[in-house]
């Protein structure tokens, strides 16, 4: 108790009492995430307003031995919920108040944003300057851009996903020593303002020097440092943009087409959904979702073609024709509309965060999700396994949502299964939970790569790579020698 008092005092000193919270109602919001995620109630929540205060917060943790839980924009809502405390005494560092777009620059297509900036705000500001932000598929409205990119959530435009760090460029981070560090071009020489004056725009994601610590911060689930701002890539807002569907009863022709398109960097947004997932995106009402899913072909490839500022019409025509030729070779045909879904509507929809309820929750009110990296040619192996598992668990396979997002320009993909369930129905909850737990193991056995190992996946994924575990621990000792960040996550 005495210790808790000491901790609270230290954090009040760090951020001021106005940014310090210990109201039980507020604290309880941070004690759990989405499906099956429950953790510890934090001791308190602090809301620093700037980088200096974040550094003070870290120093306070070092001094008091508190476990810091970085959280970008309010209480966690997703099943990933790495910002739900696993250990106590924990102090949540909610960065939601740090929501400034420090700079947005058309010439270099870049923005500098704080962790509290959500996709809606960034998109709106980008649009004013003729640009667009790069979004994952329909994030929650409260989803922090920085958090999303730190988690390596896949963006929907594979051609812009050159490397796993994209679209994140440089970051400022506070390490567990309380030191502030900038990565990539932002590291210096010079302050940001001085760099801008010399034409720099924090666009080089590599470095500084012979380190690339942004990569270590990414995917670390808040265990290595707290990011206080990041420069992120923006792209040109298309002058013309059209959404297209290609449907198939089998997934493999669409996979083949996705390979061909990504190889040639054709199309902008490009992903595959099953009927259930598309229906969930298009409709909000359960009955309508079910109806649309019934009507749709089992598999849908959605893509956009876009023309930018130079010769947009010609660009669009070229993309349309070249994609049509590839599709034709596979016996496929692109259409602008499906019965119940309009391509341009989808294109507009995915430019913004998801309206509530979140599309994954619309069918049953809640969902679990299983996602990992694989290659597109292996997707069918996982589909088959998931189908068998669902059957074995009495889970209606037709309710499973499937989302395949090519990443790294199509060299591999994010494969996601969405398991909707009724949170009020204990049987359904139990069934979904069983399936969720079992599926993680089975997918891993079949070669799934849990590059973002949340919750129970961490133990399973790290069991396969003890050398990686040792290396991560070594890095942790360097960046967070006092072990103040998010204890109990990953393999730490």
């Amino acid at each position, binding site marked *: 108790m005495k210790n808790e008092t000491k901790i609270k005092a230290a954090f009040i000193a760090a951020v001021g009492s106005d940014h310090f919270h210990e109201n039980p109602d507020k604290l309880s919001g941070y004690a759990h995430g989405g499906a099956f995620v429950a953790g510890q109630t934090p001791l308190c929540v602090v809301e620093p307003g700037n980088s200096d205060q974040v550094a003070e917060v870290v120093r306070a943790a070092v001094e008091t031995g508190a476990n810091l839980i970085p959280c970008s924009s309010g209480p966690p809502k997703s099943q990933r919920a790495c910002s739900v405390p696993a250990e106590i005494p924990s102090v949540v560092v909610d960065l939601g108040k740090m929501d400034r777009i420090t700079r947005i620059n058309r010439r270099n297509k870049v923005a500098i944003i704080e962790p509290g900036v959500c996709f809606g705000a960034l998109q709106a500001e980008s649009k004013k300057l003729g640009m667009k932000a790069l979004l994952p598929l329909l994030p929650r409205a409260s989803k922090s851009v920085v958090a999303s990119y730190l988690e390596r959530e896949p963006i929907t435009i594979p051609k812009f996903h050159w490397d796993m760090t994209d679209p994140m460029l440089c970051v400022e981070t506070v390490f567990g020593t309380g030191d502030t560090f900038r990565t990539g071009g932002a590291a210096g020489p010079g302050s940001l303002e001085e760099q801008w004056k010399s034409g720099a725009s924090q666009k080089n994601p590599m470095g500084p020097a012979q380190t690339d610590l942004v990569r270590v911060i990414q995917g670390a689930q808040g265990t290595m440092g707290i990011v206080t701002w990041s420069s992120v890539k923006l792209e040109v807002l298309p002058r013309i943009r059209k959404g297209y569907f290609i449907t198939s009863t089998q997934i493999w022709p669409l996979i083949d087409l996705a390979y061909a398109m990504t190889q040639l960097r054709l199309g902008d947004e490009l992903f595959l959904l099953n009927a259930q997932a598309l229906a969930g995106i298009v409709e909000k009402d359960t009955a309508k979702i079910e109806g649309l899913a019934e009507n749709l072909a089992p598999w849908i490839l959605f893509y956009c073609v876009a023309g930018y500022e130079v010769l947009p019409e010609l660009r669009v025509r070229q993309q349309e024709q070249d994609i049509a030729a590839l599709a034709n070779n596979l016996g496929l045909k692109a259409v602008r509309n499906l019965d119940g879904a309009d391509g341009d509507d989808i294109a507009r929809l995915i430019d913004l965060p998801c309206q509530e309820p979140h599309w994954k929750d619309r069918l049953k009110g809640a969902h679990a999700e299983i996602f990992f990296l694989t290659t597109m040619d292996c997707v069918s192996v996982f589909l088959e396994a998931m189908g068998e598992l669902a059957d074995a668990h009495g889970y209606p396979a037709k309710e499973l949502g499937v989302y395949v997002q090519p990443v790294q320009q199509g060299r591999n993909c994010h494969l996601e299964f969405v398991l909707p369930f009724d949170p009020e129905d204990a049987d359904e909850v139990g069934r979904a939970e069983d399936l969720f737990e079992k599926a993680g193991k089975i997918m891993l056995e079949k070669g799934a790569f849990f590059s*973002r190992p949340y919750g129970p996946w961490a133990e399973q994924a790290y069991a396969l790579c003890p050398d990686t575990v040792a290396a991560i621990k070594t890095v942790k000792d360097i960046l967070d020698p006092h072990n103040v960040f998010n204890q109990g996550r990953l393999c730490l």
Partner: protein
Amino acid sequence: MTKPISSKNLPDEAVSRFKEALGAGNFSTDPVFCDSYAMQPFHKTDPGCWIPRPMAVALPGSTEDVQAVVKICIQYGLRYKAHSTGWGAHGGPGYDNVVQIDLRRMNNIVEWDEKNRYVVVEPYVNCAELQAEAMKRGYNIHIHGAGSVCSPLANATSHCGMGWTGISTSTSSRNILGVEWVLPSGEVLKLGTCGSSGRWFSADGPGPGLRGIMRGWAGADGGLGVFTKMSMKLFHWAGPKETRVGGRLLDLEVEKPDNFRIAVCAFPEAKAYADALLKIGEAEIGFLQCKNPVSLLFSGGMPRLLRKIHAMPNTKKLLDAFRYQFQFMIAATSELDYQYQNQCLNKIVDDHGGILLDTPAALNSITYWSFVRVSVPPVIFRMGGNFFSAFGGDEALDNCMEQARIGEEIKRQFIARNACFDDLADGAWSLIYENGLFGHNEELYAFDHRDPEMGRQLDDFAKACTQATVEHNLGGGGFAFFKGGEVHDLLGPSMSNYHIWQRRIKKALDPDDLSDSKYYISSD
């Protein structure tokens, strides 16, 4: 006359263990053999051509061999330094009494995954070999600026990898999809999927991306263990699977495919050049974009004429008018794609007051294939016998333009004092990556290290450029890092104190500082 280096004698027991591990024919302590690893005049800023002679040379043939070598080195407290194709002082020992690990026996192409567009290679496969094999499969690779005689693995894991086709193929370090790494402890760390499932398609995770400690903008240049396998990206190749090639470089006879266009885009001033290039990036056109300075083009074909041009003021002015030019290659994948790329290029160049000069048919052979194969780079040695690159810190294009401007100012001073060859001061080699995400600029500096005065002044040039980097905020340290040692103490404080963190990484992974850190950072 250089005096013989006194070499610490290896314990007989260690020699026996090395020979036992590698085979007697793959290990030598013979000074005659070792001295051929002691000359590296390229990218060496102090005068002369000799670097420290290794006390032994080891030729491992496998990852297990490399592990064995590293572990023996640990046991006997021996420094070691690995290189692949080994071009440049940073590939050789930084100190006396180092065991040089020459990876040339590890030259296998381990695996092709054509569907998922990656290839797994060992250290000694060079870019030209790999590109030739990739093209047979309809793919191309990113070839870094040093050219295709070099190892893509060494470049991507351990050095810096800007290349002529960066506009469409990024840069080496961002093209890594997996790495097998013999750590300074002698244990193997496999990054990403290859460490978990044995497949080589993604390099980051589970969790943090450990590529972040493996390298940064620059690699550790042998200062952090040994890399034994790497998965790298393949890119679409719009040309033929086999190309009939006659000749070797300036006598090349190759048919340029009809879906390719090669042109020089020249602009009246720097702003127009940069504006146009950014638009080109946004339009997503181009297979290759690279500003090879006029001097470099001359040094390849007519190095003697270049020297005479200095006495021809009008010709010099004419060439100077082409200072803001770059070479551009379109490789279209369809007829309409060709139309789109061509028309975009025409329009953008026109909109920015530039001129577009298509390569004359007579030069198509040379430009097409030497650009695609990146066979040109060593011609720069024709000018002075050696060269050096300064700056190189990647950033937004405008910052790169500033690097070029200041670099030229600095170089003019050295030209005036005959410290380097007069390349019209237009020494900026530059390009954009990833459709303009960021840019790269190097200030090329041609000199002859055999001329003692030139050799002595090189370090002054390098220091002046490093100083300017700090004073003018010119995009990170760039090639200054390859000086190693004290440069970190100069740059670190102005760059987020990176040196402190880098040193901690070194100390954690290699506490005894056995992986030669001359071109990386020492552990204390």
